[in-house]
């Protein structure tokens, strides 16, 4: 094998720890691989192009005010995304609120505290959570969890604190709250698994050093392991947030699909994904469709940003 010294070829020379070092020009085979690889570029570019092209009329017509207007009326051709942005943010925030504590504690348990014989089974269980399809969660959420939450949490809280804005109004089984709880269940395996990996990779010598000084296991975790893992855990949380925002089917089934902004968590709402699900094929006029595409673009942008941020925080370690 020759390694070409020709400067015009040096930029193609690759010295790879995990690959093929070729100083040679690429032949057909390599170019084929590159072509396949560029399919990724193609798809991403196409996605962006189509989203923008579809959304463009709405972008032009409604401008930046699109995201702050609440009104969504196909008849009068007034479109504003605020309701859906509100719904997405609230449900995702609730999901994080309910999920983060449990997920991180579970990650700690799996990584540090569980006896060895329990780790594999419990890890498997967490993986099962991730494997359940969205529509099955939605079905269960709608037919099992929503009535239960309505009966045992929403109604009681509503009767106890009717004046408190978050619990006020008329509670419904399908509500922002229900969607938040369901999303929390759905995103926990991701937060848990990524956090667990981050915690596992925190150095064992840290633990030995602190326990050797007489710290309890929890003290070692709290003072050393968690701080060392904090960046990765934060990344896991961001990942969870991104997934919560992008999750569509299960949310559509339990959020109530009512376009309104109310203070009460127990009121039904509407999210970016849900309105797409429900109205995309109903869009009768071009500008309506275009407004929906703009919503899709918003959803795309937010999810992709979250995902990218999470990757950066967690680094290559995330499998």
């Amino acid at each position, binding site marked *: *094998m020759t390694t070409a010294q020709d400067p015009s070829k040096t930029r193609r020379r*690759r010295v*790879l720890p*995990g690959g*093929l070092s070729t100083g*040679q020009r690429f*032949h057909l*085979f390599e170019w084929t*691989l590159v072509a396949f690889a*560029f*399919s*990724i*570029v193609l*798809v*991403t570019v196409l996605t962006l192009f*189509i*989203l923008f092209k*579809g959304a463009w009329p709405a972008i032009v017509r409604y401008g930046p005010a699109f995201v702050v207007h609440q009104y969504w009326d196909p008849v009068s051709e007034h479109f504003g995304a605020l309701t859906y942005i509100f719904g997405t943010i609230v449900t995702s925030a609730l999901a994080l609120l309910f999920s983060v504590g*449990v997920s991180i504690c*579970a990650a700690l*348990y799996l990584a540090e*505290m569980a006896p060895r014989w329990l780790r594999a089974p*419990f*890890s*498997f269980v*967490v*993986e099962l*959570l*991730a*494997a*359940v*399809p*969205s*529509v*099955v969660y*939605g*079905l*269960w959420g709608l*037919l*099992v969890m929503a009535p239960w939450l309505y009966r045992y949490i929403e109604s009681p809280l509503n009767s106890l604190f009717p004046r408190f804005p978050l619990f006020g109004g008329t509670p419904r089984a399908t509500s922002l709250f229900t969607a938040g709880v369901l999303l929390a269940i759905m995103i926990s395996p*991701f937060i848990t*698994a*990524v956090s667990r990996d981050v915690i596992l990779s925190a150095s064992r010598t840290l633990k030995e050093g602190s326990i050797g000084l007489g710290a*309890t*296991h929890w003290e070692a*975790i709290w003072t050393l392991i968690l701080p060392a893992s904090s960046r990765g855990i934060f990344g896991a949380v961001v990942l969870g947030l*991104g997934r919560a*925002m992008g*999750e569509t*089917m299960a949310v559509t*089934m339990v959020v109530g699909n009512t376009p309104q902004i109310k203070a009460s968590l127990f009121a039904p709402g509407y999210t970016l*994904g849900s309105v797409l*699900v429900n109205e995309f*094929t109903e869009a009768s006029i071009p500008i309506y469709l275009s407004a929906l*595409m703009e919503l899709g673009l918003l*959803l*795309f942008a937010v999810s*992709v940003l979250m*995902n*990218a941020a999470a990757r950066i925080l967690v680094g290559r370690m995330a499998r």
Partner: protein
Amino acid sequence: MNNGTHLPASNEPGTLYRNPGGRRKRHAIDRLMNFVCCGSTALLALMVALVLYYVAAEGLASISWKFLVHLPRPVGVPGGGMGNGILGSIIMVLMGSALGISVGVPVGIYLAEYGNGNTGNSIRFLTEVMNGIPTIVSGVVVYWLVVVPMHTFSAYAGAIALAIIMLPLVSRATEVAVRQVPQSWREASIALGATPARTIWSVVTPGARTGIITGALLAVARIAGETAPLLFTSFGNDVQWPTHLGMATAGLPLQIFVYAMSPYSEWKSQAWAGAFVLVMGLLLLNVVVRAFAGRSAISMQG
């Protein structure tokens, strides 16, 4: 140095640290946190158990052989099923997997073998961007790309939408698997005079085979349960079997969705049955993956 303020002389080791009450408290906190974390894990386990229990209980109550092989019937007419949805899903998943795997594996190989430069890093970055695209957005995009030009909903469109979702998953799994192939194998092959193409074909890919297949199967399991990509592409079909690929096609997750959201209790029961079939299928797939790879390997990144 010890300027004699309020510290006792420290010739006697440990004088500063005799505090059994303090230690008891520290142990108590340790035990408490252990309990809290164990409880959190148990809570997650409980959630899974609840979901699976209801799917099994309600699903088994409503399922029958008719369900698996019959077309949907109007509400009130007994004997309807989701046969066309099951078949449609199988068709679209197979087609989508074929496409997704045949594109995803080469991408993964490229990234592993040649992907350490700027181009490679950019492509890898874009792959991860793709991974973060909400599935409904993929559905919308394929709508414009395939459904509109074809003037019809189709199984093709559904399959393509599924393939797009699969692509980054397969690519990543392949890249990881290929990177784990020992460098010495490549060197040995090249030293024998093989071209990189031959090396990849005969040495690297076979070596990464397990990882690639595992990753591919996991990706298949992932897309089999997807609903949103099918909404605007294959659209669903309540009345007929898929006779050809260029027509609106039912998909199992899609039918579950529609039936679950309907007001009819009969259809809701069928939704449970459909969910049961779907989950069973996925479990089966997971068992196959486990047997193949020797460990449970559902990707968290999926």
